[in-house]
């Protein structure tokens, strides 16, 4: 079936630094959504992209359907950014296939 390969599985950042998470897709996806799991376990929407890039504060996401990948860039990481981040891609219709998640820890 369709697969979403998310990396890294874990990431540790010092406060103020940045990095990128990546999802590679084994098939052409129509859209991608990025989530962060909050302390209550809820999946909080970060971005939804059908193409191109979107930016929101210190987060920026890109999606290239043809090259089969999406990225989530975090800059100037803050302690409250710690959590688990998921990408989820939509091949056709409405079914989302989720990546395995990236556990981000931001330390002082």
């Amino acid at each position, binding site marked *: 079936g369709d697969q979403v390969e998310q990396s890294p599985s874990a990431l540790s950042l010092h406060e103020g630094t940045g990095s990128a998470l990546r999802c590679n897709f084994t098939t052409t996806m*129509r*859209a991608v*959504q990025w*989530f962060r799991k909050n302390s*209550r*376990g*809820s*999946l909080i*929407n970060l971005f*939804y992209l*059908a193409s191109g890039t979107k930016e929101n504060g210190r987060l920026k996401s890109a999606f290239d359907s043809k090259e089969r990948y999406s990225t989530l860039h975090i800059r100037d990481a803050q302690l409250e950014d710690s959590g688990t981040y*998921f990408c*989820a891609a*939509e091949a056709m*219709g*409405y*079914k*989302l*296939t*989720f*990546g*395995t*998640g990236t556990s981000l820890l931001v330390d002082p």
Partner: protein
Amino acid sequence: NAGVIQTPRHKVTGKGQEATLWCEPISGHSAVFWYRQTIVQGLEFLTYFRNQAPIDDSGMPKERFSAQMPNQSHSTLKIQSTQPQDSAVYLCASSSTGGLETLYFGSGTRLTVL
């Protein structure tokens, strides 16, 4: 806007008992989805309703699992004769039309089958 509301937050059942999970989608959203999250499988699609009609239940285990959407304000996921392997976090999500758009998730129901 309270978001997608799921109840209960936690449910513990004994093996063989029935479990019913509830979901209230965002008001005005016509598409409702159920997903399940386990450590082994990650997040998996279960089933999807649009305008209360079942559209796709291809992710549902063939036996013991059923989902309904009797009205536009709530959906239920019922598991009969629960088994330990049913233990998971069950997530409900809604979107405006079910098309190419953002999906909004509830906080989930953590089901534990002893």
